């Protein structure tokens, strides 16, 4: 290439950069703060630096936290939770409701005059459409529709009818503002279940204009777009980069007081970058993992909020089957599992690994959830007792087990180390295995393991969401962790509690379940995470609820 042409190209590039620079200085520098106008209560952008991209924005399929937070703010549901209160259910799109004595028929009265962000009316038809849709599609990707199909009639693709006595779906339109649910089973956790994102109310007109409802098939448009009745509307989703929301001026809740006009959820995988943006004030809130909190604690302008208890738990599941690897499985013995539960030094674990950001998990139902027994027995560190129990079980000389955890999880890697040391003290040798997640799942499914470090997070605020998957036997649809543990009494109690509508009765049933679970433990109950949020000190209106995602509507920038 001739030198002339080369110079020409360089000149053009330099000119572009110089012009760009000039424009950047003009546009990009944050404008000097003008005195706030008293009339404008909705302004500014809330920038949240976090990790993870949503899987899909369609409530009928979404089952991950990144999707959840967006869906929760853009769509509404019939009922919801307020603030940090986990014991009471509040009205949302439904203003009030009644239930009959069988517990199977629920009648909801809807709020009048609610519109979707595009002006379409949100009425009983929309409610019916939204629920039916979830069951007709049947969430082929994630299976989230199980939450509703537990207690609602399912759909028959071939006949085009519902599998109910009269062929109709569980949801019936009584009039424009009244909806009735005729459930297949009276489900104890019905209200908490329909507060979850899967029960979000979508706009039938919009769905039908974009592919409609196809049995067994996802709606691609709905996975990338949203039209809801919630406080914020969907603007843009740049995959792996950010999601932008804008306030919905017609939101039925109104815009009294101060609110953010825009929400920017930025997907930033590198923790150092998130920290820098938070410290500079370009991010209002950032996800900082526990082991990096010291980077930001004490820095001026940054608040580290440690109040709040999540329902996220860490446990170690034990393979309770009679044999493992063609040999007698020591973990089959109740005494052995008790021994192991005594062998763990919970306090050191909580101090060193969780750095005080978790409490010891008290049984299979997390603290704060209705049904949790605050007086439940908990194991404590007692190596002496552990050794006695082992001797009693016939394993005075100990044995070897494998402990699996998923690749990339530093916290669990650390847990595995400490557990190994603790068990060594009582004569149990531990071989640690770090496996890729899919491989780990595979082994779990086939029961090809001794112990695996696992975790659970809530779908909705009901003990059935925890106790059943952990403790119910595989035969009745439980044992999600494939521990192979089963107890006929527990099965009976869990089934009863599942379909009992009287919450007090349920609490009694779960109390008994929890006691048995502690006596004959299938899990080592390690930790229940506290909640830590890191944000700029000017951020107001932040609160934490273990079953709700971040609520943008109540946030605002104070001074």
């Amino acid at each position, binding site marked *: 290439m001739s030198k002339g042409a080369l110079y020409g190209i360089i000149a053009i590039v330099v000119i572009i950069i110089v012009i760009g620079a000039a424009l950047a200085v003009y546009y990009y520098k944050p404008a000097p703060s003008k005195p706030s106008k008293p009339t404008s209560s909705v302004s500014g952008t809330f920038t949240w630096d976090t990790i993870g991209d949503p899987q*899909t924005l369609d409530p009928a399929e979404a089952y991950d936290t990144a999707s959840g937070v967006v869906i929760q703010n853009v769509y509404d549901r019939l009922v919801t939770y307020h603030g940090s209160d986990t014991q009471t259910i509040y009205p949302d799109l439904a203003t009030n409701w009644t239930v009959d004595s069988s517990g199977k028929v629920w009648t909801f009265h809807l709020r009048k005059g609610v519109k979707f962000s595009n002006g379409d009316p949100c009425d009983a038809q929309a409610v019916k459409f939204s629920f039916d849709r979830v069951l007709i599609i049947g969430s082929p990707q*994630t299976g989230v529709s199980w939450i509703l199909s537990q207690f609602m009639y399912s759909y028959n693709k071939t006949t085009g009818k519902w599998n109910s006595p009269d062929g109709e779906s569980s949801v019936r339109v009584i009039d424009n503002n009244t909806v009735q649910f005729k459930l297949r089973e009276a489900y104890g956790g019905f209200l908490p279940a329909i507060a979850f994102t899967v029960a979000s109310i979508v706009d039938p007109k919009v769905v039908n204009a974009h592919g409609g409802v196809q049995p067994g098939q996802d709606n691609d448009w709905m996975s990338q777009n949203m039209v809801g009745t919630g406080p914020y509307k969907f603007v843009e989703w740049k995959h792996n980069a950010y999601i932008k929301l804008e306030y919905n001026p017609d939101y039925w809740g109104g815009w009294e007081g101060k609110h953010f006009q825009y929400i920017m959820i930025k997907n930033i995988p590198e923790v150092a970058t998130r920290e820098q943006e938070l410290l500079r004030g370009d991010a209002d809130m950032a996800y900082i993992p526990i082991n990096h909190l010291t980077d930001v604690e004490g820095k001026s302008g940054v608040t580290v909020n440690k109040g709040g208890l999540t329902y996220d738990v860490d446990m170690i599941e034990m393979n309770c089957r009679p044999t493992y690897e063609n040999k007698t499985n020591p973990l089959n013995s109740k005494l052995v599992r008790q021994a192991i539960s005594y062998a763990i030094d919970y306090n050191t674990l909580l101090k060193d690994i969780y750095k005080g950001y978790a409490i010891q998990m008290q049984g299979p139902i997390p603290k704060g959830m209705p049904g949790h027994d605050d007086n439940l027995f908990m194991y404590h560190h007692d190596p002496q007792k552990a050794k006695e129990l082992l001797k009693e079980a016939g394993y005075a000389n100990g044995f070897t087990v494998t402990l699996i955890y998923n690749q990339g999880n530093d916290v669990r890697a650390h847990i595995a180390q400490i557990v190994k040391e603790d068990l060594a003290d009582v004569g149990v040798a531990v071989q640690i295995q770090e496996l890729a997640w899919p491989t780990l799942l595979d082994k779990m499914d086939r029961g090809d393991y001794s112990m695996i470090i696992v975790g659970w997070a809530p779908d909705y605020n009901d003990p059935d969401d925890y106790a059943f998957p952990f403790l119910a036997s595989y035969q009745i649809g439980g044992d999600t962790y494939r521990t192979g543990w089963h107890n006929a009494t527990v099965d009976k109690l869990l089934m009863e509690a599942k379909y009992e509508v009287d919450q007090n009765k349920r609490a009694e049933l779960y109390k008994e379940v929890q006691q048995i679970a502690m006596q004959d433990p299938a899990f080592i109950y390690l930790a229940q995470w506290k909640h830590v949020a890191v944000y700029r000190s000017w951020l107001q209106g932040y609160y934490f609820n273990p079953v709700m995602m971040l609520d943008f509507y109540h946030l605002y920038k104070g001074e």
Partner: protein
Amino acid sequence: MLIPVVIGVTLITFTIAYVIPADPARAWAGQKAPPEVVEQIREKYHLNDPLYVQYYYYISGLVRGDWGYSHSEHRPVLDCLMDYFPATFELTIWAMAIAIPVGIYLGVVSAVKRNKIPDHLSRIFALSGVSMPIFWLGLLLILIFYTYLGWFPASGRGITPSHTYTGLYILDSILSLDFQSLASDIWHIILPAVTLSYATLAVMTRMTRSSMLEVLRLDYIKTARAKGLPDKIVIYRHALRNALIPTLTVAGLAFAGLLGGAVLTETIFSWPGMGRYAYHAISTLDFPAIMGVTFLMAVIFVIANLIVDIMYAYLDPRIKLGE
């Protein structure tokens, strides 16, 4: 020659991906999915069929423009690639735009002022480029230019241009006359492009230096000087023109390599590119995505090799095309 190479690549990747001892359907479905859903997935994606049947479905889909469905993103693989590839492409182009001219210039200076201060400085610079972890460099640049000086942003690509033509933000901004996004996009690409360019720049410097040193020793350089030509002409018109031949071919391959997705740079600067996508696809066993990325990469490499061959023939009259 191209087609067999590409087919070969897809075959190998396909086999490796499917031979991994893990059940992809289970992983795609998620931990909480009931077994029926898992089985549904298996049916839909022919995972129960023998490998060659699956391969057949895959190739026929590719040809029809159906590159499969990406499970980690719940949308077609082609859509994902159309999102992420231009991002990586743009970043790579600018990284090369920095690496090549600067690298060549430093290499020439090094060779001409051999063993003097400029040579030592530029060799230290080049060595640091090759040995410095790109991760560390990126964070360092963020610390200096974002946190302390506040000149450049630390994450993202900037404002999306009002119209998308190519997916290359800067070009699209100019085409849609959206100057606000142009400014933002230029500002956002500078730090990641510099970070990404560093290693290639170092390589270019070293290659140019050694190539130049070899050429400068040759007889025709003596001839050129004997003609009374000024040093600048001898260096740039006579020596560099010859020294560039091996150097530019290396640059061509470096470009193709960078296109594979500079995962680390993209992670640090939250650049939504192919590197991050490929990494995520691998860790979630998203086979269609893995295959899609690999196929694309194979095609790119083949094209890059072709271009390099053509460049070679153009630069060096001793080499004829078509052999």
